[in-house]
């Protein structure tokens, strides 16, 4: 009990810290970051959009590591980490897919283009929805952990292949702004605001994964207790039948 109360306190402290970071990040986006020359105010969604994309990437990387961890060590902790990160990563991926069209519509004139990054994000989203669906359709916890870990490894390995095949298929799309070709790049102040916000989003991610991990652990505990109760009930029922026969 003492340990759990202590970890509650740590989590509370972390939540306050992350909350402050998010507020400070939002302030920086609107009042510190310079105005972009051609896109004006709408460009400020960039900090949230790209930050969420990178955060989703980190979360899916954690899923991949946890999948490998589970298959090699078979400790339940890896499975819990995998499902927690997959759900949180999917949430950030959804944010990317929603903020993308909001940004694209006024700037490009269309909400969606079939470019490599957009299409890869959409496929990535489908793959991790598949991962969670697979889990929800497998009732046995051990089987669920093994099968979803195998699928998760396949899904993660697929992402670069998807990206490169779409990139070759659609060669006419705009150069990436960050780490793109000549003439791309961010204003140093924009970089600082972006990285600050990314750290805030990573904090949100870590907090959510931690919380979800706790929930998953409790769910497994409930599952085990239910099995135990079912055994006891069956045992009591058979005893009463035997007692009835004896009378």
């Amino acid at each position, binding site marked *: 009990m003492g340990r759990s109360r202590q970890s509650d306190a740590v989590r509370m402290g972390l939540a306050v810290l992350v909350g402050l970071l998010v507020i400070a990040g939002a302030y920086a986006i609107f009042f510190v970051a310079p105005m972009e020359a051609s896109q004006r105010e709408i460009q400020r969604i960039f900090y949230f959009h790209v930050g969420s994309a990178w955060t989703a990437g980190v979360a899916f990387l954690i899923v991949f590591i946890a999948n490998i961890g589970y*298959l090699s060590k078979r400790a339940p902790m890896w499975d819990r980490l995998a499902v927690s990160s997959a759900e949180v990563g999917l949430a950030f991926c959804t944010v990317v897919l929603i903020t993308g069209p909001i940004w694209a519509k006024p700037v490009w004139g269309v909400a969606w283009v079939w470019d490599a990054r957009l299409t890869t994000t959409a*496929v990535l989203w*489908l*793959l991790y929805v*598949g991962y969670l*669906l*697979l889990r929800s*359709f*497998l*009732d*046995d916890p051990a*089987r669920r952990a*093994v*099968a*979803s*870990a*195998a*699928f998760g*490894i*396949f*899904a993660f*390995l*697929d992402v670069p*292949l*998807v990206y*490169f*095949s*779409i990139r*070759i*298929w659609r060669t006419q799309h705009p150069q990436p702004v960050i780490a793109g070709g000549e003439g791309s790049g961010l204003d140093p102040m924009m970089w600082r605001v972006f990285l600050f916000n990314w750290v805030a989003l990573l904090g949100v991610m870590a907090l959510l994964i931690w919380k979800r991990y706790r929930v998953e652990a409790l769910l497994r505990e409930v599952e085990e207790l239910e099995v135990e109760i079912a055994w006891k009930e069956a045992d009591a029922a058979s005893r009463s039948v035997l007692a009835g026969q004896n009378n």
Partner: protein
Amino acid sequence: MNSLRAASIILGKELRTEFRTRELLTTTVVFVLMVLILFSFTFDPTAEEARRYTPGLLWLAFLFAGSLMLFPSFAREQVNDTLDALRMSPAGSFAIVMGKVLANFAFLTLAEWLMLPVFSVFYDVSVLRVLWQLLLVFALGTFGLALTGTAFSAVAAHARMRELLLPLLLLPLLTPVLIASVEATAGLLAREPQFDVTWVKILAGFDVVFLAASYLVADALVEE
């Protein structure tokens, strides 16, 4: 026991089981045929631009057929718990998986070869002048489909709704195969045939990556 020999014994067993009923082969052929006929209603199949869409149509039919037909590969072993017997045999996990992959690859390839002349007649494309290149693209694309489809058939074998789940898991994963096979096929079937090695490399890359992945997770795939 040598794992190559073990895989070939399992391949033989799968082929015997399939040729007793020919379920997979018949349903795949009929499914692809149905798609080819029904899709002709959604656009003008004789128009010149149809040439650009029909390879996509053909490959979508193959991928959908594969994702629907491959699920019995492992699920079939559950009826009499025969996967336990396979596990107890001296064959390693990877040999079991590869035996099934090769069998499924053989069935799907056979179905595709049967469908190719039909496709050629229906959509007025000449396949003979580029036959070898086309068969190479078919082989590489189909191996990717058979490999991931068989692996996911094991993954989904115990799930509820597994027949529906398999396409949901498999089709997004096959995006690179779809793009590369369609582009390579479209290049070969154009008025001036082009053989673009880039797409062949992507298909080969997909096959190699997932062959290695299957080797590494083979134990998890055939686990009870």
